[in-house]
């Protein structure tokens, strides 16, 4: 014999509450968080290097946190832009959570930061489930990864506010079919914007910065259909 309790509780409620607190706290002080997700090697760091440099040139106070299981290589690369950068070593954890981010920001994030870019652990599965208090979630895919990436990782692409295609200078040798990729993105996330970028050719330079600033100024970001159902 036992008692049965209908305990209707969302499992990730703790992370979501922490993310909401962080979002409110940062937005109030004028900082907007951009969460970057992709598989390893899609070019998050390369894109961010370029966009941080542009932010500095344009006088936009930006900062970046980059997460990896090991090494400080990415922080060293991003720091060359001259903006404040911090490496998060997850010690094997495959994603960031809101309270981890909050801990790393404490006593580090410069007061006047307008845009905080968070380069998540390279992984399209787990980071998708964790809200970090971001106002803009960006999912990247490089042209060499195949047009069906959005179908293979529907949660990551389905919850994106912006989809960025990287390495378009290699689109031709990789036989990347842009139309098929776009159709696949629309299947899991109708209406989301897809932008093309290449840090080699310069395509899409500033696109990330512009979208981030627009979100920081309070412009409405895309509302993914998939983000609606949550219990």
């Amino acid at each position, binding site marked *: *014999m036992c*008692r*049965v309790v209908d305990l209707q509780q969302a499992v990730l409620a703790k992370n979501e509450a922490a993310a909401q607190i962080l979002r409110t706290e940062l937005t109030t002080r004028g900082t907007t968080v951009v969460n970057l997700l992709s598989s390893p090697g899609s070019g998050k760091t390369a894109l961010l290097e370029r966009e941080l440099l542009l932010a500095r040139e344009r006088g936009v106070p930006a900062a970046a946190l980059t997460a990896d299981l090991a090494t400080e290589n990415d922080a060293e690369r991003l720091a060359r832009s001259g903006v404040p950068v911090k490496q998060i070593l997850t010690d094997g954890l495959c994603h960031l959570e809101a309270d981890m981010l909050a801990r790393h920001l404490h006593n580090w994030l410069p007061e006047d930061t307008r845009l905080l870019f968070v380069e998540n652990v390279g992984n399209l599965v787990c980071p998708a489930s964790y809200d970090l208090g971001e106002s803009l979630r960006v999912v990247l895919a490089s042209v060499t990864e195949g047009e069906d990436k959005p179908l293979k990782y529907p949660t990551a692409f389905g919850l994106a506010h912006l989809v960025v295609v990287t390495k378009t200078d290699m689109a031709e040798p990789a036989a990347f079919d842009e139309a098929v990729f776009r159709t696949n993105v629309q299947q899991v996330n109708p209406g989301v914007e897809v932008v093309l970028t290449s840090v080699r050719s310069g395509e899409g330079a500033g696109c990330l910065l512009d979208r981030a600033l627009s979100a920081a100024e309070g412009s409405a970001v895309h509302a993914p259909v*998939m983000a609606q159902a949550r219990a």
Partner: protein
Amino acid sequence: MHEMSVALAVVDQVEQAARSRGAVGVESVSLDVGELAGVVPDALAFCFELACAGTVLEGAELFTRSVPGTARCGTCADVWDVGMPPQLICPACGNAAADLVSGRELRISEVRWADVEAEADAAHVRIREPIPQES
């Protein structure tokens, strides 16, 4: 593989509920897992056993119920199973889905306490007698 984080979150929440009720043991925990929640039930079951060790949940069974993804069209009001990978474009009229009705749930639906005496004190916890199939 974030199933360990999910398992730890489940254990944490059930432990809290157990403390507030003075429960001394847990027979089972039931979870609703939406097919778009990004959680693998088998991997979760493995992690759950590890996460329960040394807690009031030690030895508890985990039951997961899969919740299919369904969407509703804002234009023609059609409702369909989105499948996997999800199809969020309306199969009837070709417009974008207006709502995802279900499919992203990740929720503790039910806990069976090993003790019989404890009473719920939290307002959001509803106690009911077990139905015959549960006894």
